[in-house]
């Protein structure tokens, strides 16, 4: 096993990991950074984000309004100190990206343009056509190339956290191309590994989003917070689950059912708005949880459109005209043509809700700190409680910037304040045990289960039991099923015995990570007996602030079901109220 010594290890080189790396390099070029990623940085899933990044920009907007939209959008499960800090820092971070060369779309006067987004009271979503995440990721990656202190380890698959006396001390990773194991030791570790959308069968998420960082932290005893909150994006392409950005609706696209009726007005998001004149926080600019739930009801009523890929509703954008579509939404236009054969300039596009984002993740706070000293978590893998029970579109790209930077400062300070011995025999033993576990998986020659088989069963059981609507019975079945799959996964045999780029082995390791994340989702969904944001229980239809204005915290208990604890929500100035998406018409 090779040993790499760094001051700070960052796992994950997507938007959050890169932002943190650059921030550390700027704080002090002497700090040695090891940036580990299972893919080349530009492959990270940040690149698939389309619509944009939120930050107050126009004079008719205010931090207060962004705060209120975020907190009510999150159904009051957001930690409000975190939201306050976020809305305040957001504009500065977006300008910073502009200084680094991000090709933001512009207004006629040369200033950065902003567009409306779901659940936002004003235009405040900065965008680069419909490839905002792509441009943010590439800007960060390219900017990072000028800092020699950022040492990258591309295509290194992180296996597990190393910790000693309750403190994070590094990770063990496998170099994919050689199969060699690397022991990274560091004073602090930042997890930035993204979400776990791949635990569901139908998702906008890429293949790499398997909850690796969440599972590593979970196995090390760190709690997972609010894992029951899984965001369904209302407008995915059927079949592939490819995202059609909320920007489509921000620009004026509307949703209709099989009768051509704009059904959202029947679900507390009316009255109907004029075609091509979207009204903030109403109808198609309602929040994602409400829109996805409305689809579910339409499907139950038989109002959806049957297609070769299942039931859909239609997103009609024809009234926007070719020029606007091709200028502001060129990629989704191409995607719809390629994958479902529909030209949105001339025809409505079939869409359906699709798993998009995990509000939950590694429990972290406003500093990006987790309960384990020296371990920080940022981006989708973290739950810093900015997003509460439902994330507003375009808050997450800004989140990874704001908290990427903040956690970087924390990790650098932690590394400076906490000296650590360069040689640590206890850690070496831990690392050896991790390597032995993985070698054991590789060498195992018996077994009648397969990665694809167990993965498929996991996905289906989550969709069944912890989908858009849930109940006691369904979540209970899902919990048992996941536990059963955990046990059965021990009988998986890896057919590929090669050391070089063994994606069969990687698939198994990712499946184990996904099962850990799936366990948390199912168990937390089972434990929260109320309906809030993206978590809707058919047996507890009301929000219950009395008992559940709290974060769920799932702790791993090897061999048994996880323990769910509850943590108070931080409330500074906004008491729980009614989420009004009638565009102030009520």
């Amino acid at each position, binding site marked *: 096993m090779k040993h790499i010594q760094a001051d700070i290890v960052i796992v994950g080189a997507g938007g959050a990991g890169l932002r943190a790396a650059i921030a550390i390099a700027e704080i002090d070029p002497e700090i040695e950074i090891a940036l580990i990623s299972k893919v080349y940085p530009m492959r990270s899933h940040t690149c698939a984000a389309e619509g944009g990044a939120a930050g107050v920009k126009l004079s008719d907007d205010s931090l207060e309004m962004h705060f209120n939209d975020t907190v009510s959008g999150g159904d009051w499960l957001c930690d409000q100190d975190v939201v306050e800090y976020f809305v305040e820092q957001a504009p500065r971070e977006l300008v910073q990206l502009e200084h680094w060369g991000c090709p933001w779309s512009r207004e006629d006067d040369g200033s950065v343009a902003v567009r409306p987004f779901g659940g936002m009271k004003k235009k405040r979503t900065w965008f680069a056509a419909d490839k905002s995440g792509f441009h943010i990721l590439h800007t960060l990656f390219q900017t990072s190339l000028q800092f020699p202190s950022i040492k990258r380890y591309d295509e290194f698959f992180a296996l597990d956290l190393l910790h000693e006396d309750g403190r994070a001390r590094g990770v063990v990773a496998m170099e994919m*191309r050689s199969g060699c194991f690397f022991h990274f030791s560091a004073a602090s570790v930042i997890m930035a590994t993204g979400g776990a959308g791949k635990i569901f069968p139908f998702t906008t998420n890429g293949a790499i989003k398997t909850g690796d960082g969440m599972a590593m932290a979970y196995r090390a005893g760190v709690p997972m917070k609010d894992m029951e909150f899984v965001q369904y994006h209302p407008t995915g392409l059927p079949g*592939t689950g490819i995202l059609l950005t909320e920007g489509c609706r921000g620009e004026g696209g509307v949703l209709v059912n099989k009768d051509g009726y704009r059904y959202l007005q029947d679900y507390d998001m009316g009255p109907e708005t004029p075609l091509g004149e979207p009204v903030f926080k109403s109808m198609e600019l309602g929040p994602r949880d409400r829109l996805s739930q409305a689809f579910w009801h339409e499907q139950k009523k038989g109002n959806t459109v049957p297609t070769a890929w299942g039931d859909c509703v239609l997103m009609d954008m024809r009234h926007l005209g070719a020029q606007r579509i091709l200028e502001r939404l060129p990629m989704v236009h191409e995607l719809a043509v*390629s994958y479902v054969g529909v030209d949105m300039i001339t025809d409505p596009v079939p869409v359906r809700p699709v798993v998009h984002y995990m509000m939950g993740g590694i429990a972290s706070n406003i500093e990006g700190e987790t309960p384990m000293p020296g371990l920080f978590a940022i981006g989708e893998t973290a739950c810093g409680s900015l997003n509460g029970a439902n994330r507003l579109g375009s808050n997450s790209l800004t989140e990874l910037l704001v908290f990427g930077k903040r956690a970087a400062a924390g990790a650098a300070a932690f590394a400076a304040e906490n000296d650590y011995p360069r040689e640590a025999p206890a850690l070496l033993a831990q690392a050896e045990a991790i390597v032995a576990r993985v070698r054991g998986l590789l060498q195992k020659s018996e077994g009648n289960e397969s990665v694809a088989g167990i993965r498929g069963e996991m996905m289906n059981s989550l969709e069944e039991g912890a989908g858009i609507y849930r109940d006691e019975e369904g979540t209970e079945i899902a919990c048992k099923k996941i536990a059963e799959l955990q046990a059965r996964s021990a009988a998986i045999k890896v057919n590929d015995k090669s050391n070089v780029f063994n994606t069969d082995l990687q698939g198994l390791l990712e499946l184990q990570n996904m099962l850990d994340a799936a366990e948390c989702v199912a168990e937390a969904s089972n434990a929260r007996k109320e309906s809030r944001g993206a978590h809707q229980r058919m047996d507890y239809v009301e929000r219950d602030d009395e008992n559940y204005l709290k974060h769920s915290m799932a702790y791993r208990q090897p061999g048994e079901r996880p323990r769910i604890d509850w943590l108070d929500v931080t409330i500074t100035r906004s008491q729980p109220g009614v989420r009004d998406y009638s565009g102030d018409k009520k």
Partner: protein
Amino acid sequence: MGTRQIELEVMRYNPEKDEAPWFQQYSVPCEEDWAILDALIYVKDNLDSTLSYRWSCHMMVCGSCGMTVNGEPHLTCKTFIRDLPDKVRVEPLENFPIERDLVVVLDDVMQKLQLAKPYIIRKDDPPPEDEEYPQSRAALKKFKQYTMCINCMLCYSACPQYGLSNDFIGPAALSLAHRYNLDSRDQGKAQRLDILADHDGVWECSFVGACSEACPKNVDPAAAIQQMKVDGTMEWWKQKFGLTGDKP
């Protein structure tokens, strides 16, 4: 939706077992709307879990799944069964060493991206931290096309110059340099000139144009390189006659 049987002929190479690459046949029942990537996923999940390839987003933006399909470089998520015959040959990208099966070694081009100095370089101070650079829509349009590169490396696979000599900096890295040269916020053109106008830079390109045909994002690297030749020549004369403050 109907299925169609496709005979996939996939190049395999396991450095621990094989002296040289060889082809393996898989018969795959493909849905009509599948891309080649879906067929490979089917193979991995149902027929042969030892097949290695890279993929992630399945929406033409992460750049992972570039391979050679029936002799041409393609993103396999963007190469549809409906456009292909019943027999399809899938190989790794050309011009790169094969690590394993359909996975190639990308170290060289990753180095080259760095050579392009793909970040804003300033001589003057940037605006204050709460103020953006003004940039007209026309100024944005000037370089926007060259920001679209997803680093899928199809252009390197298509480029015979790069195939003949890996010293050539190559299409994607040069377009990336051009993207920053054209950005109204950047003042680093002279710094990029040293490497790019060198003989391994733009002048190694003989304008075959294959890179631009292969590019799945219409970046048109061939155009970028020709423009840089013009730019480089102008810059060289300017420096020759001391018309610029930059070091030659």
